[in-house]
Structures are given as C-alpha cells and as structure tokens.
C-alpha cells in the first residue's frame, strides 16, 4: 500500500516541480522605477515580427519594429518629399553620382560613432549575394561606393536612375553596425541602430519592447520612454483591449473601425493606404492570352460596389499606381475600361471567340476576408456576361507559392504600390520585373517604363508614367480594383500621432498626456 501511495505522491511532486520550473523568462513586466512619469505606449498588432534584420526581412510586422531602431541616409517627410536623415545633405555632380554628407556625432546604440565606413558596409552587405537581401535588386545599379572622409560618402551608379533616392528611403536600406553583424551572424534576433528607440527585448508571440535612445542626435526626440508591441492575433481581443484601455493603439480592419466609431475615449484614424486590390491573369493561358477577354472582364467589373461592400465604402477606385501616390496616379475613373458596360463586354467576348462566355477558377487566400469577399463579388458580376467562376480558397503559404509559380489562372490579391511609380509599373509588369509573375510581356510597355526609370526630370517622368498607366490599363494583364484605407484606433491622451500613407506608424513625436 505504501508503495502505491508513494508512486502517487511521486507523480504529484513531479507535477509540482514541473510547474515550479515555469519560471519568469517569458516575463515582460514593466519594472521601471518612476512609473508615475514614465511614458509608455502600448501598441497591439495582429502579427508577430518575422525576425529583426532590416536587410533580410520585408514583412511589415518586422518593419514596424526595426524602422524605429534603424535609420537610413534619407527619408520621407510628411508630404512624401525626400529629406535627409543620417545624411544632412547631398549633391549630385552628375546624373550617376551622389555624394552624401553625413550628420556628425551620431552614435549607434552600442555607443560607437556612426561613420561613412558603416554606410559602405551596410550597402555592401545588402548587395552581397550571401545576404540574400530582399532589397538587393533595388540597388543593383550601384557600381561603386567610396568613402571620401569620416562623414562623406560617394555612390556611383551604372546609369541615371530616378528611383535611387526613393529606394534609399526604404526602411530596409538601414545603416547597421559591422561588429554587431559579426558577433551575431545576422541581425534577426538583435537590433543595434542609430534610431530614436533602442531594442530591449523580444518575447516570441508576446511582446517586443523598445526603450528611448537617450543619446538620440535630435534634441527632444523621442518623447516616449518606452514602446511595447503586443502580438494579439485575434481582432476581438484587440478591440476589447483598446476599449478598456489595456492598450493605447492598434491597427484595425474596416469592419472593426465602424464598430469603434462611437466608443468613448477611443479615436479611429483612417488614412489612405498605398495598396490596391487586383485580379491577376496568367496571360500565357487561354482564354486570358487574348487582351479582349481581359478587357471584357474589366468592363464587367463594378469596382464601386467592391469598394462599398468589401470596404464599407471607404476605398478609392485605383489603377496600377495607388491614388495616395498623388500626382503620379492618373484619374482612372474616367477610363473607358472602368465604366461598367455589359453590352460592350459581351461584344468583346464574342470577338475573342467566346460568345457564350466560359468557365474558370478564381484563386484567393482564405487568410484575408477582403480577398475572399472581392472574389465572391467578381463571381456574381462576371456571371452577367456568361463567365462562370468557381472560387478556390487556399492558405497563405500555398497562396504565395501559387503566386510565384503562376499556377493559377486568375488570382485575387492585394499589392503594395510602393513609394515610387517604378515599383508599381516596372517591378510588377516589365517583362523582366522580379514580381511579374503573370507571363506578361509587351516590348512597347517595357520601353516606356525603362525610360521612366532613367528620366531624372520629374515633370517629364510624370508624363512618361501617365502614358505607361494608360497603356497598362488597356492591356489589362491585371485588373486594378480599389485602394483601401488603413485604420488605427488610438486612446484619448495619446498626442502627436498622425498616420501617413507612407508611414502609418510614426511614433517619434508621440507622447501621452
């Protein structure tokens, strides 16, 4: 009997010890001393960062964190004008040479001064094949980087490139410290930059904590002592936490934004995003190899009802360049292919040899409700011209695979149109564009966007992209649908926060009352 009881107690003790071992290493408790004056901003996000290395990680959930820790040579101001960041100014002796003068006395978070050597090292790391950097292709025309002094550096390009400075504003074109890379192998788990916030701790699937950089070279910034990012994948949980004040700020979907409209002590801020939704065709496959079929589908698409139903009316009809890019985007609503015209659509289908329509499959990602809703609307709308579709919903990892291999006939998704028209036009639709997965190739179009890339004169460049957009709409390798808004819910008492299309989460100036 004793033996049996002994065994039972042994199990009990094992259980207790195991529980006792669950120590506090996952703790993120704020234990700073003077909590009465400490300015802490709590932000909830739906995704976990996918690593912190700015040169290796394009995921937005990572960018929002490392963009506070690292800085680049130049950045955008609130009007999307390029201004200096680590470079105080720059000159251009000729079309292919840029000389940057660096701000002096900038220190990395490890205390060492940042110099031109670090700039050189960072770009060499980006361009090094072994880094497998996602932004290497942005700087593939950099021929030579030369350090002219501690605070001066020269970039030589192989040919004139109007996108060079814009590409430098990318959060991934960050200046990193060589010794930190060498010590850690890469920067996925550490972050030592020159930015306003220092990286403190990352607890997987729970929190990322940043603290104020006391030595920041701009006086008075940042205003917060600490920023904590909470990963809360469930929207209901984020809504409940912002309602009760457990968190100060969170991103929202359009549907939830309307739920919070009348909530006390919470402000919902909406701003136009740089994204648009699209229908992508595999143009190598019948019937989509015929532009008339694609045009017919464009004429059968009611974009306004997509904006109304999928996005609660808070989305703008968009072309290949999102409307929040300002002057660069053409007013697509006047375009003929954007006027719903079922008669004309049927005529075009008949001319292409499909008088009775055809059947096909729309593939989209089940992960995003807006994509599925969009696909369902298209299914109804296209039915009216005899195009019968079946919707195939796949999981995100498989969706990306399908996208990159063009293994679907029609794909519904969302694209970021970037901060320079070159990305929206060249990158996605040039015959050799890295993200042209549509088998689309048109030599006239290629010539136009190549010219756009090398034309430095802004006015001329705009004209070129107007032509390119019209041409692309007419060829319709994709149907561009609508550009949604992004929403952020902010608690009362959080001051100084203004989201912009190109920078939705700037918190340098934010403080709490």
């Amino acid at each position, binding site marked *: 009997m004793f033996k049996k009881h002994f065994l039972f107690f042994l199990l009990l003790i094992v259980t207790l010890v195991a529980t006792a071992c669950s120590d506090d290493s996952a703790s993120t408790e704020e234990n700073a001393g003077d909590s009465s004056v400490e300015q802490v901003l709590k932000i909830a996000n739906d995704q976990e960062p996918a690593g912190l290395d700015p040169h290796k990680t394009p995921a937005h959930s990572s960018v929002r964190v490392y963009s506070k820790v690292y800085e680049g040579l130049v950045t955008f101001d609130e009007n999307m004008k390029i201004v200096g960041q680590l470079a105080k100014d720059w000159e251009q002796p000729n079309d292919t040479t840029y000389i940057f003068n660096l701000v002096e006395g900038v220190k990395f978070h490890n205390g060492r001064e940042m110099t031109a050597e670090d700039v050189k090292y960072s770009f060499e790391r980006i361009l090094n094949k072994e880094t497998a950097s996602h932004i290497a292709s942005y700087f593939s025309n950099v021929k030579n980087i030369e350090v002219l002094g501690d605070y001066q550096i020269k970039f030589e390009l192989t040919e004139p490139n109007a996108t060079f400075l814009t590409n430098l504003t990318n959060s991934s074109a960050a200046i990193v410290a060589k010794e930190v890379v060498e010590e850690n192998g890469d920067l996925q788990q550490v972050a030592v930059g020159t930015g306003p916030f220092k990286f403190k701790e990352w607890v997987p699937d729970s929190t990322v904590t940043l603290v104020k950089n006391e030595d920041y070279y701009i006086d008075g910034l940042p205003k917060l002592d600490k920023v904590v990012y909470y990963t809360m994948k469930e929207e209901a949980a984020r809504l409940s936490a912002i309602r009760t004040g457990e968190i100060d700020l969170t991103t929202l979907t359009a549907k939830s934004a309307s739920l919070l409209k009348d909530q006390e002590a919470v402000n919902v801020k909406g701003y136009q995003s740089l994204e648009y939704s699209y229908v992508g065709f595999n143009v190598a496959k019948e019937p989509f190899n015929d532009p008339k079929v694609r045009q017919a589908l464009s004429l059968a698409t009611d974009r306004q009802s997509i904006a109304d139903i999928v996005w609660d009316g808070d989305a703008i009809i968009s072309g290949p360049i999102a409307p929040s890019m300002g002057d660069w985007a053409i007013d697509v609503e006047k375009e003929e292919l954007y006027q719903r015209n079922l008669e004309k659509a049927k005529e075009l289908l008949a001319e292409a040899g499909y008088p009775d329509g055809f059947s096909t499959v729309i593939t989209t990602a089940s992960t995003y409700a807006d994509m599925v809703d969009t696909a369902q609307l298209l299914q109804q709308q296209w039915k009216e011209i005899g195009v019968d579709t079946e919707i195939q919903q796949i999981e995100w990892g*498989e969706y990306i695979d399908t996208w990159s291999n063009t293994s679907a006939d029609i794909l519904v998704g969302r694209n970021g149109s970037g901060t320079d028209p070159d990305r929206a036009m060249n990158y996605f639709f040039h015959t050799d564009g890295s993200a042209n997965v549509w088998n689309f190739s048109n030599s006239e179009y290629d010539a136009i966007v190549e010219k756009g890339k090398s034309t430095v004169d802004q006015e001329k460049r705009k004209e070129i992209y107007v032509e390119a957009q019209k041409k692309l709409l007419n060829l319709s390798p994709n149907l561009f649908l609508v550009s949604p808004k992004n929403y952020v819910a902010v608690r009362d008492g959080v001051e100084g926060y203004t989201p912009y299309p190109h920078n939705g989460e700037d918190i340098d100036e934010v403080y709490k009352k």
Partner: protein
Amino acid sequence: MYTYIIRRILMLFPVLFGVSIFIFIVMRIVPGDVAMTILGTDATPEALEQLRKDFGLNLPLYEQYFNWIGGVLTGDFGESMRTGQEVLPDILNRFKLTFELTFLSALISWFIAIPLGIIAAMKRNSNVDFGVRIISLLGVSVPNFALATVIILILALAFSYSPPVGYVGFFADPLKNLEIMIIPAVVLGTSMAGAVMRMTRSSILEILRQDFIRTIRAKGAKERIVIFQHALRNAMIPILTIIGLQIGTLLGGTVIIEQIFSLPGLGQLVLTSITQRDFIVVQGAVLFIAFVFVMINLLVDILYSYLDPRISYK
C-alpha cells in the same frame, strides 16, 4: 512494473522515429517554401536560391533528414529559418505556458465534472440529473472559440474589463499570471468538463449495478461509503482514460484558445510555423508534442494499476 516502464520508454524510440519521418515528409509535400514566404513580392531568383542554400533545402532529402535528426539526437533542434530563434529553448519556454494552462483547465474541469457526475448518477432521472446532462451536452457541443469570443465581448462591453495584455510567467507575477490565465482556463475547463461529466455519470451507474455493490449495501454500508470508497474508485478507469486523452491533446497546444487570448504557447508556435513553412520549427515541435503525448499515455497506464491492483503489467 519497472521493467514495464522501461520497456514502454524504449518503445518511444520507434514511435518518435516514425513521427519524425512522417512530419519531415509531410512538410516537404505541402506546397510553398520558407524562402518564398520570407521574401514575398521582393523575391529574386538569386535571393531565393541563396536562402534555400542557407537553409540546406538544396540538399538531397535523405541528407536533409539526417542532418536534422542527427542534431535532434544531440539535443540541437536547429534554428528557426524565419526568425533565427533556437528551436528547443523556444519550445520548452512555450511548453511551460501550455502546461500551466492545461493543468488549470483540467483542475477546473474536475472540480465541476466529477462531483456533478456523481450526483447525477446517484439521482438518476431526477431533475438534477437532467440538469447535469444538459450542462454536459452544452460543454461538449459549444465550440471553444465561440465561448471565448462571447466571454471577451461580454466582459469588455458590459464590465469594461479585458484581461491584462502581455504574458507574464507564474513566478514573475503570480496574480497577473492567474488573471491572464483564468479566462482561457475556464473556457477550456468547461468544454473538458462536459465529456468527463458524462463519463463519470455513466461509469458510476454501471458500477452501481454490479454485484459487489449490492453486497456492500447488504452489509449495511452508508451510501456515502458505497459511492466514494467503492464505486468511484472502480469507475475511475474510463474517466482517467478520457482525462489522459484530453490532457495529451491540450499539451500539444491549444491553438485556438492561445490565439484568441494572445498566449505565447506551443499551439501558436506550430500554427505560425506552418503558415510560414518554417520546416525546422514544425518538425521539432511536432516531435516534442508526440513525445509528451506518449509520456502522458504512459502515466495514465501506470495510474491504472494504482487504481485497480488487478491490472498489472508484466
């Protein structure tokens, strides 16, 4: 007994070997790979190739497998392809949370289910019995995620309360930890309780019909003694089986509940890694879960012989 335990532990190896091969192959059959999910629309053929090389995905399959399993045998589960985080420490860290959540829910479910099940069996076909059966049916049939979402909404809208954000370990701050864990534990506990309640009721009813109970009653024993000293103990075997299965399943990660309550447990790790095609993490985590499941089963088997000495393992 001890030889039995040792034999069962030795049995672990073929089981885990089978699981390791299975999950390795499944992850390679699923479309998509980690290099593509990392780079997304920024992917270039050169960068993809370099990443695949870095992750060893360009090697022949058997070589990939032996590299991985060789590491596992020496305690090195590798690094996450996506975040560079070491796999085994991450799994163990998250297991603590999942372990705590599982046992809190199990405790809650026992406190509800076993007493109610006994009462229902004692007062068979009374109103109390009907009440218990309805409650247990609800527990079994209301999905976790629905109950969880409703509780979150009601607390936020009616009581302006939401659980604290950011997970804290039990020993760092027991009160905050319990405040975070209690709602998820109640949600899981009530749904576990349904099944346990039903099993307790029917198992006790079954025992009460047996001859030895009649003998005990004939000897004039009090009903309390009949139930607690004789019936319950004999009825425990099927109840324990259910509890063991439930705990084994929960320890493998309570994916939905962890997601809804933002708890960094094992379930979230597996889910995120699957969507990102982070093969190394999925493989390590599944192997670990299989190990835990087998161990729980072993534990249950040992408990059987403690509860019923007639069961012996030789």
